[in-house]
């Protein structure tokens, strides 16, 4: 190895080491850095729960049962409903005398929904007609409302199916009553081993976000802080290559980002049951590419911003749309077409997409090669522009 290169590599590693030591010594900062990903994951995980019926975030939600009919079928139905609700921990059912009293309770926030067994429920069934159960949910939170509704409706369906089967058996049909009540049914077959988990969607996205954003904002902050406090002059006045300085800072930020990224993954596995199916090595490769694709942008912003505070605000400005447009928190397909194009112009989309495929679907390198190619091109293009701008800004 030529001497100059070895020296540069050495300087690079020393700058990275120094930055990490400095960071390690800032205990509060370090603690915040560790708590942050955990907090973000749980917040977003519970805020945007999976909409599949299998996972209901509103466990034991209080709802009201209003019986306007006192017939045998009504009582039987109410008992079965409560039993299923309690055994599946879906609802905590309270009896209310009238719909209006239950409605008032929704307004004060005491309950989340109402199941009404209307008058004539038993009579209809007795006279061999279809009967109706009314379900109301607190619609001020539409997402919760629809979950409450679908959960309650599925309990009703179970009771109804059971009733149907018993009626068919009584009719003397020797075959499977399900053949009549539900001739075709659905079973979910997952792409991956276990059942899907919203966190499995979120975790890779958050890993990508933390690593990439940590580098973007961290690099900018680290450089502008050193410029402001004057220590950058101490480094620049030494016989070291400018690229080695930038590279050293990048390494330190990347190491920080990777620690945080794997912390998120570890916690998601531990706390939220996320399973990793892909290769950890490939995950690191993808994250490093994500970092490289953003480092240039970070450097350009740092070079343009007159001081640290502005640099941070500029990073925030970049960070926010990227967070929401790169398909990290919800699938990209939910966005209107033009916004999808904006999102796809951002490298974070490709980093998150590749990482998700590796973690959840155990994709191999040649299955994510398109993402990798885009990230590599992005890295070269942005760093190619950024390094001369940065060097010029530093010797101004």
């Amino acid at each position, binding site marked *: 190895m030529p001497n100059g290169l070895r020296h540069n590599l050495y*300087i690079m590693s020393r700058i990275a080491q120094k930055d990490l030591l400095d960071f390690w010594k800032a205990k509060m900062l370090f603690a915040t850095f560790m708590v942050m990903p955990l907090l973000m994951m749980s917040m977003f995980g519970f805020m945007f729960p999976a909409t599949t019926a299998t996972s209901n975030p509103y466990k034991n939600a209080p709802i009201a049962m209003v019986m306007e009919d006192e017939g045998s079928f009504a009582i039987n139905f109410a008992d079965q409903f409560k039993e299923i609700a309690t055994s599946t921990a879906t609802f905590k059912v309270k009896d209310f005398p009238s719909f209006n009293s239950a409605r008032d309770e929704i307004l004060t926030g005491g309950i989340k929904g109402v199941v009404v067994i209307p008058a004539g429920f038993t009579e209809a069934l007795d006279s061999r007609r279809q009967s109706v159960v009314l379900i109301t949910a607190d619609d001020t939170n539409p997402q919760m409302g629809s979950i409450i509704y679908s959960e309650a409706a599925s309990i009703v369906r179970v009771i109804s199916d059971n009733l149907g089967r018993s009626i068919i058996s009584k009719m003397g049909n020797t075959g499977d009553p399900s053949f009549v009540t539900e001739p075709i049914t659905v079973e979910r077959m997952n792409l991956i081993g276990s059942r899907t988990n919203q966190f499995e969607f979120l975790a890779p996205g958050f890993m990508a976000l933390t690593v990439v954003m940590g580098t973007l904002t961290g690099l900018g902050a680290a450089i502008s802080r050193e410029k402001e406090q*004057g220590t950058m002059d101490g480094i620049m006045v030494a016989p070291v290559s400018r690229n080695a300085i930038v590279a050293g800072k990048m390494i330190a930020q990347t190491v920080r980002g990777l620690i945080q990224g794997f912390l998120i993954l570890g916690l998601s596995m531990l706390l939220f049951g996320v399973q990793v199916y892909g290769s950890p090595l490939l995950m690191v490769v993808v994250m490093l590419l994500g970092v490289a694709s953003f480092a240039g942008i970070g450097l350009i912003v740092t070079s343009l911003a007159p001081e640290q505070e502005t640099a941070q605000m500029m990073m925030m400005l970049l960070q926010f749309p990227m967070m929401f447009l790169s398909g990290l928190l919800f699938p990209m397909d939910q966005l209107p077409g033009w916004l999808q194009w904006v999102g796809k112009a951002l490298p974070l989309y490709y980093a998150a997409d590749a990482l998700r495929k590796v973690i959840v679907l155990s994709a191999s390198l040649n299955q994510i090669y398109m993402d990798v190619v885009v990230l590599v091109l992005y890295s070269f293009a942005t760093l190619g522009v950024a390094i001369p701008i940065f060097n010029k800004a530093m010797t*101004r």
Partner: protein
Amino acid sequence: MSWVRETRNQIGNGASGGQPGDRVRVTLATTTFAAILDSRVINWLRLVAVTSPGRVRVPDGELMEPIITTHSLTKKFGDFVAVDHIDLEIMKGEIFGFLGPNGAGKSTTIRMLTTLSEPTEGTAEVSGFDVRTQADEVRRRIGLVAEKIILYPRLTAVENLMFFGELYGMSRTELKPKINELLEMVRLESFKDIPTGGYSSGMRQRLNIVRGLLHDPEILFLDEPTALLDPQSVRFVRDLVKELNANGKTIILTTHIMEEADELSHTVGIIDHGKMVAVDETAFLKGKYKCETLEEVFLELTGRTLRDSASSHVPMRRTMGRI
């Protein structure tokens, strides 16, 4: 002695008589005349140029040789000319007091000489190397003690010094005894494992100076080394500067404290509005302008007007490089 200077003035400026910045022009003139004068005359002129009266304090028998030379050194920030075609010569082994009002171009000149800022025009040679094309060679030979303390507050003295020493390619085994020796010199050995953020201003500045000395530079740039320090620390730093100079280091000292410049410098250079208005031995300047103190000379040359308006001309981009 005065005949020497008179002769130099005549060579440098024709019949115009003594003007601030004489010494500088002499060398330039030497070069210009070189083409037409007999070589013996040139040698005589060189001798005259280097044996100026300001040199008496420099170790005996050693002929002056410039260690820093600038030609038309200029720095512009947009339309603002911060440093305006400066020709300067700083001699090896001297303490050069670099003075000037706020915003006169001191820091920008220092930044160019220390390779931190690229000149817009002109050249500068430090220790024989061009600041632009041989920056790393220059960097190896200079130490910078800037106005802002160059230390990481969360790291200890040893960690700071190790880091900065390693930037100069020094190994840890090489650095260890060096660091101990330097810490002892500034009496900080018992605080070496404490984060520097907890140091007093005086301790921090002493450590800051030591940081600039780790790689044993030929030239030490000291930018206001005693600003904001208590009298004890000021005395310590000034004595340290003298000691370092006595041990052979060329020192470029920037300060606003005229007594300090008077006490320490062999030569002072006064810059104003980006131009050198005087470069000479302090005693000579006092005599020339019939002033008792260097402060009077300074005010005589740079005027008494406050310089508050200067900074508003500076475009925002200028702050970037300085931050």
